[in-house]
């Protein structure tokens, strides 16, 4: 027989029926059901198949410790695998299905594994599949089948359509768990004026009271809980919210399920929130989790925790079966048995203890429970569902004498209770074994963290309430600054008759297949095998058998497994030791941690002030760090990258071109010691740089390797603007602050970022001056007034007036060039005004590809060359280093390997065969020695009209160009299947004296 709905009772809302589908079939439950209770009410028993043996599995609990019923919910992009049916709130239209089975969970071909289970003991895969004759081919052949059989649910292949938020919360007191202890704690703290947050993973408040028939202050527990909850004004109560991790600083991670439950599928709202809470104090009131006992076939559908059997009855008005056997070793099972009997379920109670507690036994018998003391469960009968239970009596030799089989269709088992101390373990605190109560209690507590209720081994409800209040009172005292006097909290305990530790039932002459971790199919025999083979540390046993490594993380199996291991090693449980608790307490969707940082919003996009102006004109964009930079400006739609950059570069050489340089880092350096500071930071000198002049500088790292380069402008006696590469702008700023605040505190210098204050355009080419002058409203940029590396202030005429600008004679392309800086708000107007004049001169806008071509022809280094491993001399800048003043990096730059003459130096490469090309990343090798690490590498390539029109490369070669006069080298590029011969030349062939940059244009 299977489960069925009772005509009345439970906390479900019978006025709101909910239809849902299970493996495609329509079924019905009510609001307030979980998927598990609704399936049980519909008579479904086999809901899943186990990991290794593919044995049939049903509901084994009523909470997050569920080891059996793992299902998949949702379809298409919203398909969500591995959900525990006990944690899924029933919602209208919910589509749930079985997983890890073919064709379905009721009839699964994978079940054949169970027949061979004797060969598939723990760790068998370490001892075979290696194949013969070396190599990995045989293993990888078997691996394909193993991977398909393993794993549980199948994830979606489409992007998750839902969004999640990361929410930052702050409070005085965070209470975790809304059972009697948590509700009491939150209530008292709020009354005393604390700013309180109460979080509860369930969709209802009350904790264990929801599943028990117990009365509190002479009203049903659930009603008492609802009353307490209603009285919590001013408390932020978050249901469907799991505290999954406790971290340093007592910061707690929460996952709040927002839109995964009935009645709230608003598209604008996130599916869930990852909440990061920073409480001043925490009260952990997370309760305790019931443990099973390892007995024969204890994984069959119909075997569940005793408390769960009662909970389905009390909370969901579902009888798990017609004839139940409740088997336990402590007082708590009596209430469970009485609840079942009260619902006219024929119930037998086995109490492992010889002397059952008299009043409890009498009360149970009073409602028709057949009580047997001194009895234990031996072996469940039935395959796809329990049909009976063999019972017996423990004998002195530790085994059990089998007596008889009792027909039944549900078995509720209890081996005791494990306080949910997991969160305390996240920060490394080890729980302490309490032998008499056979459970681990919280160990050392961190300051600011208190425990309340059954998490501390306090079992009676009224004691839990008192414990909650005491913990809250302590928090109020602590936060008021007064030394908190320890309030009298109830001591652990509360059972009339002590529990009788019972971990495993064994027969003398027959081995029982008893499961400790039903999800990973780990049996007690596996644990003993691990001990026998030498994997006898609990950490080795865990990893060899995979006990506790499944989705329930051993919430019910870990302590039982540890007890079996301790017995196998003839040691006590505390001597053996528990494995480590790790976040998350229960699994959390990856999407929640990503929050809004999805797709395009993963990293913020930076735009220059002239972005829109160029975009409107059809610019094609590329990325430079977080910036968008114009890659090229197609003359007509569809123009290729190569055609565009050759055209643009030619314009700069022949008429005029304009490029957006706003992304360069710009740092204001102000104060009387500004010049001295720059002198120490750059290899070359700045003290004698005249005002309204600028100078190219290079910075080294402490270890003597080149860090960054750029032009520094002197705008006043005590005011400089240092420009850096786009990539190192933030790093350079932080580096300046490091030096000023931690190494040279005596220097009177202030630094601040100017990157976003100015938009900059480089106007380069023989007609650059003419183009700018046509737009000038004020200012003289003649060669006399504005010599090479000079700066002037001027005004440009724009559509609606005049704008102030700074103009500097800086050239990166090697042509006559000016960098025009306007304040960001005026920069679009500057760009439009200058571009109009440039076009009038036959010029164009150009992008970073053309910029690259021009600088390669000129032999300038960029980030492609300065890869964090090259020195000043390597990059052809050795002569810049000052001989007279010290600078950062000078000492370690002298290290022997950095000073070797045969280091790779900057050079140009020309193809020997006309028309041939080569690519960046090619390795420069000597003729006949195309192997090993070669003698250099290429960092940049381009078509080079200004240097003979052929293909041109820039890069490094051992000993520099002079070492390869008249000799060809091989450019090996095996990744692209190419090998070309090249001639090595000096990188400074184009206008080496720089007449174009410095003087009047001699040509054009």
């Amino acid at each position, binding site marked *: 027989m299977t489960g069925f709905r009772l005509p009345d009772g439970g906390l479900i809302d019978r006025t709101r029926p909910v239809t849902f589908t299970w493996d495609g079939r329509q079924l019905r439950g009510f609001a307030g059901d979980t998927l598990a209770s609704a399936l049980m009410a519909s008579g479904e028993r086999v809901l899943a198949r186990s990991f290794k043996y593919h044995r049939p599995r049903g509901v084994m609990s009523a909470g997050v410790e569920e080891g059996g019923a793992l299902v998949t919910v949702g379809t298409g992009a919203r398909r969500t695998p591995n959900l525990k049916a006990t944690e899924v709130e029933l919602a209208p239209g919910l589509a749930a299905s079985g997983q890890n089975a073919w064709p379905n969970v009721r009839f699964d071909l994978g079940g054949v594994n169970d027949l061979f289970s004797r060969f598939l003991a723990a760790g068998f895969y370490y001892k075979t599949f290696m194949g013969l004759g070396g190599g990995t081919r045989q293993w990888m052949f078997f691996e394909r089948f193993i991977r398909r059989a393993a794993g549980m649910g199948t994830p979606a292949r489409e992007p998750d359509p839902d969004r999640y938020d990361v929410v930052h919360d702050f409070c005085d007191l965070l209470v975790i768990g809304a059972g009697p202890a948590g509700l009491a704690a939150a209530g008292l703290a709020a009354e005393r004026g604390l700013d309180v947050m109460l979080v509860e993973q369930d969709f209802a408040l009350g904790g264990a009271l929801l599943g028990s028939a117990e009365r509190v202050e002479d009203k049903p527990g659930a009603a008492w809980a609802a009353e307490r909850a209603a009285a919590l004004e001013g408390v932020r109560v978050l249901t469907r919210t799991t505290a999954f991790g406790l971290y340093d600083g007592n910061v707690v991670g929460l996952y709040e399920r927002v839109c995964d439950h009935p009645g709230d599928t608003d598209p604008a709202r996130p599916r869930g929130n990852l909440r990061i809470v920073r409480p001043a104090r925490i009260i952990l009131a997370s309760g305790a989790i019931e443990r099973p006992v390892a007995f024969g076939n204890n994984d069959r559908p119909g075997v569940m925790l005793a408390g769960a059997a009662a909970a389905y009855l009390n909370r969901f008005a579902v009888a798990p079966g017609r004839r139940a056997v409740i088997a336990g070793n402590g007082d708590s099972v009596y209430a469970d048995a009485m609840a079942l009997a009260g619902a006219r379920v024929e119930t037998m109670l086995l109490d492992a203890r010889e002397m059952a507690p008299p009043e409890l036994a009498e009360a149970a018998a009073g409602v028709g429970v057949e009580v047997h003391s001194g009895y234990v469960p031996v072996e469940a009968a039935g395959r796809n569902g329990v049909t009976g239970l063999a019972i017996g009596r423990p004998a002195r030799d530790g085994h059990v004498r089998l007596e008889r089989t009792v027909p039944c269709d549900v078995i509720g088992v209890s081996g005791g209770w494990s306080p949910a101390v997991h969160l305390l373990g996240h920060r490394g605190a080890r729980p302490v074994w309490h032998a008499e109560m056979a459970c681990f209690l919280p160990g050392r507590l961190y300051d600011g963290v208190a425990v309340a209720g059954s998490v501390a081994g306090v079992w009676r409800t009224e004691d839990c309430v008192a414990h909650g209040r005491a913990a809250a009172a302590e928090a109020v005292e602590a936060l008021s600054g007064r030394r908190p006097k320890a309030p009298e909290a109830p001591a652990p305990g509360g059972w009339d008759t002590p529990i009788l530790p019972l971990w495993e039932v064994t027969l003398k002459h027959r081995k029982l297949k008893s499961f400790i971790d039903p999800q990973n199919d780990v049996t007690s025999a596996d644990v003993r095998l691990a001990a026998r083979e030498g994997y006898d540390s609990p950490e080795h046993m865990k990893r060899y058998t995979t006990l506790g490594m499944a989705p329930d993380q051993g919430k019910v199996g870990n302590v039982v497994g540890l007890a079996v291991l301790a017995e196998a090693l003839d040691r006590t449980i505390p001597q053996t030791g528990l494995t480590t608790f790790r976040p998350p307490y229960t699994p959390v969707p990856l999407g929640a941690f990503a929050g*809004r940082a999805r797709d395009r919003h993963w990293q*913020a996009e930076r735009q220059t*002030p002239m972005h*829109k102006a160029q975009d409107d004109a059809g610019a094609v964009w590329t990325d430079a760090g977080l910036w968008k930079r114009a890659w090229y400006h197609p003359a007509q739609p569809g123009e290729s990258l190569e055609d565009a950059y050759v055209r643009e570069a030619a314009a700069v050489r022949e008429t005029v071109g304009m490029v957006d340089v706003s992304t360069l880092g710009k740092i204001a350096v102000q104060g009387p010691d500004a010049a001295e500071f720059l002198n120490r930071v750059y290899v070359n000198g700045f003290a004698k740089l005249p005002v309204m002049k600028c100078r190219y500088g290079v910075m080294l790292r402490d270890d003597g390797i080149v860090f960054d380069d750029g032009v520094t402008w002197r705008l006043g006696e005590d005011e400089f603007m240092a420009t850096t590469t786009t990539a190192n702008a933030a790093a350079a700023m932080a580096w300046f602050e490091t030096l000023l605040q931690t190494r040279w505190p005596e220097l009177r210098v202030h630094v601040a*970022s100017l990157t*976003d204050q100015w938009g900059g355009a480089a106007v380069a080419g023989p007609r650059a001056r003419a183009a700018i002058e046509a737009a000038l409203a004020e200012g003289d940029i003649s060669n006399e007034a504005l010599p090479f590396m000079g700066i002037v202030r001027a005004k440009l005429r724009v559509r609606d007036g005049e704008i102030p600008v700074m103009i500097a004679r800086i050239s990166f392309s090697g042509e006559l060039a000016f960098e025009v800086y306007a*304040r*960001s708000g005026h920069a679009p107007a500057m760009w439009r005004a200058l571009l109009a004049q440039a076009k009038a001169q036959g010029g164009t806008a150009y992008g970073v590809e053309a910029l690259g071509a021009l600088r390669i022809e000129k032999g300038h280094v960029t980030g492609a060359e300065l890869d964090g491993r090259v020195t000043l001399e390597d990059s052809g800048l050795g002569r810049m280093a000052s001989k007279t003043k010290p600078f950062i990096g000078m000492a370690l730059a002298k290290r022997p390997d950095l000073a070797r003459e045969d280091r790779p130096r900057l050079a140009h490469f020309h193809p020997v065969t006309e028309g041939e090309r080569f690519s960046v990343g090619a390795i420069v090798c000597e003729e006949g020695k195309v192997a090993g690490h070669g003698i250099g590498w290429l960092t940049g390539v381009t078509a080079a009209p200004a240097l003979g029109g052929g293909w041109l490369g820039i890069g490094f070669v051992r000993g520099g160009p002079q070492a390869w006069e008249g000799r060809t080298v091989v450019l090996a590029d095996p990744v692209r299947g190419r090998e070309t011969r090249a001639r090595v030349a000096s990188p400074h062939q184009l206008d080496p004296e720089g007449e174009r940059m410095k003087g009047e244009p001699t040509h054009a």
Partner: protein
Amino acid sequence: MPERASPLEGHDAPRRFGPTGPDGPGVRLSERRLASVWLIAAWPDRLAAAGAAAAKAAGVEAAPGPGASATGEGGTLMRVEPLKWLLIGEAETARPGLDPADGTVLELGHARTVLHVAGPRAVELMARLVPLDLRPAKFPEGAVAGTVLHHVGVTILARDGGFDLLVLRSFGLAVWETLIDTAAQFGAEIA
């Protein structure tokens, strides 16, 4: 002087989006155009003197301490760094007078844009963006804080019951889009 371009150009047309409840949108978003921004930085041993100059420029009693701001004729003076104040205003103001022996002044009028977040659910929106407790009790009118919004540095000023977010201009549009993306769930309006 010609009109200044905004980094939100083309993206800030007034509209409503998300489920607005009976009592109107939960969040109102707008851009506040600044005309002048001056960074006043004191030498460590001249903090008081530089502070006095800053206060004078802002037209307030005294220069505000850490986490505070003061508003006067010359604009709003905010203490943003141990040795630095930021003076922002919607009117053009002259360069604050400061003796070089006391510190330095830097013009940053164009470096930032100000995004204003207002409305009954502004605090809830901000809790999804920055790791600070911006509830009125903890972050009253006039409070100032430098923090991080999705990896982007931002300075927050509590003003007119809402918040001014001072963002580097180049990040302006990206932060604006993040505000819109996150605010939709509260019912929002671009004013």
